[in-house]
């Protein structure tokens, strides 16, 4: 028997979810079969069926490899039926036999299609021409379930095959045991059974019936097809999800409910709704349970904690259109009743979303969620880092401004630049108090330059003259080591805080201190970094003293500083209409 050379080539790796086909390939034993054209074709079809059914044990169901294998199965089986007609196979433990030819052989129980069928009681399987795609799919579905080892309490392979009601697939299967007549012995009664404990239903169960005083003659009346269809539609596939939610409601409202069992059932229904992608009904289910347990808030809280797990919260959010302004009422009710962990899950989603399309929606949801529990937001903020932390602080300001200010003060000493910048943003709008002053001081002393550069103007504008000494001390301490950008920022801040003091300070830096020979020889007192600080400040200062100091820098400053000072003076002269103008 030739190997299956007609099988699909492994797809080119284009997506991360595409995996190599090894493991899905036929083993040498699987390929071995008798040699007639019909057998070859049957072998190809069976290998394709096996690969497709096993693919779910190897790959995620959404993987493109699975799709390829499903297509191959369809092609091969259709080809076999079209070319040779009926395909009737006898099922042995490790072989499938067509007539007298072995068309499939695999002794590895994990891989073997024939073993799976035989184990589950199938002894013959036949495919007829006219086999529809839906039937092929249904058969594949049944075998895939068995291959993945799912063992359900409701069904076995035979009941699944019966349910399918195939028209073009015939199955001969074991449906139980019957006495072997050849070895029958005369009955002697249950001598060994003994008195095993039994429970009998009450003697008059379901009695008495309500009265039936009258009767109507019996007649055969045909029932119209439309009426029948209307009744059938009550149990359609589409009705199952709604029925499941209703079942939970009825169980909860039944007399003497077993709450643990009922809520366990509700969680099972949730799993079903998520599999079916009926997220709309997930929210409705939560609402149903909450309403049924209105009088037991602790039970509701415990249920919601389990109900709104990470997977469910994500599914609920993803089902909402990103740009939707008005959110569904059941969803909002659920969110408003949700425990703190739920909002934490929303925060996780928000952090993951970054600048994605759902960011705005998630911010709204988080803000709403924390309205009822701002302390939970503070707690979460303390654990967060980076952009998420900054985001949470911003959200806290929307929810509870005093709490946000307090959190901003705390955050001013955090070792997190994004968070410090957000704290700065909040402090910029706050009243200048000893608390906020300390916070701003932390920020100008931050180990992150971006934070320091942003903090100087805020400190100056909020604190004014009160913060001038601190700014001066910072400049004089750090000017030598700070960058040009920072130097300029602190220079501008000094002028912003108190211009006269700044000019005096700049003068003390720039003009020589002594009048003797040394004083005549040293034309510029300040080192270049301080010159730069002064230059930045002087650019924002007006008046003769500022001009004089600029001129000093232009004449005696470090080369780049001098150049910029001259440019500044030139710009000012041009603005006044020329020198002396």
């Amino acid at each position: 028997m030739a190997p299956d050379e007609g099988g699909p080539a492994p797809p080119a790796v284009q997506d991360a979810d595409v995996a190599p086909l090894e493991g899905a390939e036929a083993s040498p034993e699987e390929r071995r079969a008798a040699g007639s054209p019909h057998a070859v074709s049957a072998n190809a079809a069976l290998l394709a069926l096996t690969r497709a059914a096993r693919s779910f044990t190897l790959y995620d169901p959404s993987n493109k490899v699975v799709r390829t294998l499903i297509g191959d199965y369809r092609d091969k089986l259709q080809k076999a039926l079209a070319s040779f007609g009926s395909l009737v196979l006898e099922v042995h433990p490790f072989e499938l036999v067509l007539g007298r030819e072995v068309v499939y052989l695999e002794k590895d129980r994990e891989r073997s299609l024939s073993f799976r069928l035989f184990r589950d009681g199938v002894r013959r399987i036949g495919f007829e021409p006219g086999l529809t795609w839906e039937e092929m799919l249904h058969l594949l579905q049944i075998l895939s379930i068995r291959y993945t080892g799912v063992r359900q309490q409701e069904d076995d392979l035979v009941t699944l095959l019966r349910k399918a009601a195939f028209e073009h697939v015939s199955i001969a299967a074991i449906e139980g045991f019957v006495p072997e007549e050849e070895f029958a012995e005369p009955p002697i009664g249950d001598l060994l059974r003994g008195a095993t404990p039994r429970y009998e239903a009450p003697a008059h169960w379901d009695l008495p019936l309500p009265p039936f005083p009258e009767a109507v003659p019996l007649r055969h009346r045909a029932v119209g097809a439309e009426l029948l269809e209307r009744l059938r539609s009550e149990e359609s596939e589409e009705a199952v999800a709604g029925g499941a939610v209703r079942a939970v409601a009825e169980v909860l409202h039944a007399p003497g409910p077993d709450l643990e069992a009922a809520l366990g059932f509700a969680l099972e229904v949730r799993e079903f709704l998520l599999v079916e992608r009926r997220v709309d009904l997930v929210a409705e289910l939560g609402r149903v349970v909450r309403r049924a347990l209105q009088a037991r808030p602790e039970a509701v809280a415990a249920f919601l904690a389990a109900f709104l797990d990470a997977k469910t919260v994500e599914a609920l959010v993803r089902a909402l259109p990103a740009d939707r302004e008005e959110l569904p009422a059941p969803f909002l009710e659920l969110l408003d009743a949700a425990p703190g962990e739920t909002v934490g899950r929303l925060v996780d989603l928000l952090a993951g979303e970054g600048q994605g399309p759902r960011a705005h929606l998630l911010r709204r949801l988080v803000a709403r969620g924390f309205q009822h529990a701002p302390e939970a937001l503070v707690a979460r903020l303390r654990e967060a880092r980076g952009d998420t932390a900054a985001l949470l602080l911003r959200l806290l300001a929307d929810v509870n401004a005093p709490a946000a200010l307090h959190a901003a003060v705390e955050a001013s000493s955090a070792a997190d630049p994004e968070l410090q910048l957000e704290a700065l943003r909040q402090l910029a709008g706050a009243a200048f108090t000893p608390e906020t002053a300390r916070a701003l001081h932390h920020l100008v002393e931050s180990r992150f330059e971006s934070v320091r550069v942003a903090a100087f103007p805020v400190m100056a504008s909020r604190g004014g003259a009160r913060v001038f000494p601190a700014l001066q001390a910072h400049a004089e301490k750090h000017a030598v080591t700070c960058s040009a950008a920072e130097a300029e920022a602190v220079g501008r801040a000094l002028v912003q805080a108190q211009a006269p003091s700044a000019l005096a300070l700049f003068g003390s830096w720039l003009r020589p201190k002594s009048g003797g020979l040394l004083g005549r020889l040293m034309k510029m007192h300040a080192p270049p970094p301080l010159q730069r600080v002064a230059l930045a400040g002087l650019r924002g200062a007006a008046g003769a003293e500022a001009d004089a100091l600029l001129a000093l820098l232009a004449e005696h400053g470090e080369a780049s500083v001098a150049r910029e000072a001259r440019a500044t003076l030139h710009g000012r002269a041009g603005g006044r209409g020329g020198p002396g103008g």
Partner: protein
Amino acid sequence: MGETPLTVATDDLERAQAELARALGRARIGEDRALANQVRELGERLAHLLAGLLRMTRLHSPDNNAFNKPVEDLHHTLVQLHELLGSVHLVAVEDQVYVNDIRIRAGDKASSLRELSAELHRHNVGGITFHLPLGGPAVRALIAAVGGPPAMQEPRNTLVRALQAAGLSGLELQGRFRFRMAAEGEQQGFDPGGFLSRALAATDEAFQNLAAGRVPNPLPLRRVVTELLERGVADEQLWADPDGVPPHALHQLRVAQLALLVGRDLGLSSNLLQDLGVAALYHDCGYAAGGAASGGVGVAFEKHAATGARLLLRQRGFHEAKMRRVLAILQHHRDANDGLRPGLFGRILRVAEDYDTLGRRSGRLSPTLALAAMLKWAGTRYDAVLLQLLVNALGAYPPGTLLKLEDGRVVRSTAPARSPETFATPLARCLRLADGSPAPGDLPLVDLRGAGPLHLLRALP
């Protein structure tokens, strides 16, 4: 033959893939993997321990200390299985061994299972049912007897008597089995008596297990329903009232038959018919909550629907069949025109249940008059369409109706209506000859077409 054009539409494949993924997702959430694994492991342990003990009898007497540990292990295994399943059915058929319908994996112990089968088959025994866990001495006695030489005549009966003399109880020995294939009934003649016996036993066992506090196991009942659907519901013996059967089990089965008549004529799919049948076999299970496991306090009528639903919720994992039967059981006594309108299954069960209770159990009315009395409530207590479907299916003289023919013979209607044309002329079994003497049991069924006017009887004269 030419080749068919092979086109693979990507949309079709993507849809197929999504449907398969969904089906697998559904299957997974329906699992109770812990329970399934436990049952399988314990069943395998039972089979291998039994095989091992029997093998040891070749070398030692069963009262040898070498048997102490494995005997104790077997006892504990039976205790655990009994807690989970109730009666434990070990069956050796052809070259396979099953414990409660779960096939025991042989793996590298295949020879052990073959030996077990051989040991049992020597005594013409095909299976052992342990209704109770055997204690240590009883296990030894069982091993000694089975390990001993078989009798020449009636080996199984001889073994049974020997075990009874040794004081054993709480078990049964079954005869040899063979596999029953689904298509057999059509080829070899369906044995309705055998089916009825199996169906009643399965239904009763399900009820007893619920009463004992066990997790519901719907699969055996689903197999009963599958077989019933396969065979059809028209056979006379399926509608006879066998003697000595638990009345509750018979009622559950009868309601299932009636519900499936309605469901069949409604055109429900095989899938839904199976689910309907299983729901019917469980519909009054709420009364089991009065068992010892619930403190022995009987369940009142008003509460049995709710308690039934609670019992069924012990089964873990979501399955739409479970959901349907929980809902149906909660609703099966609700009026069709109730403000909380019951679902389709609930309304079908109401019709089926009240008919069986009124027309058979209560003895108040004959089947014909029971239907006629119910028809007065069509559209209120009962869904009018579903009730009419039942009327159409059962006929003017439903099974069990006593009739007197013009010639004086007394007959009993044996099966549902064959067709609209024979709505009022069913097949019947003659009970009294024209002279009033009892009719022989082997008379052919009477086709009442052309039998002239029929007179309804309340009881046999």
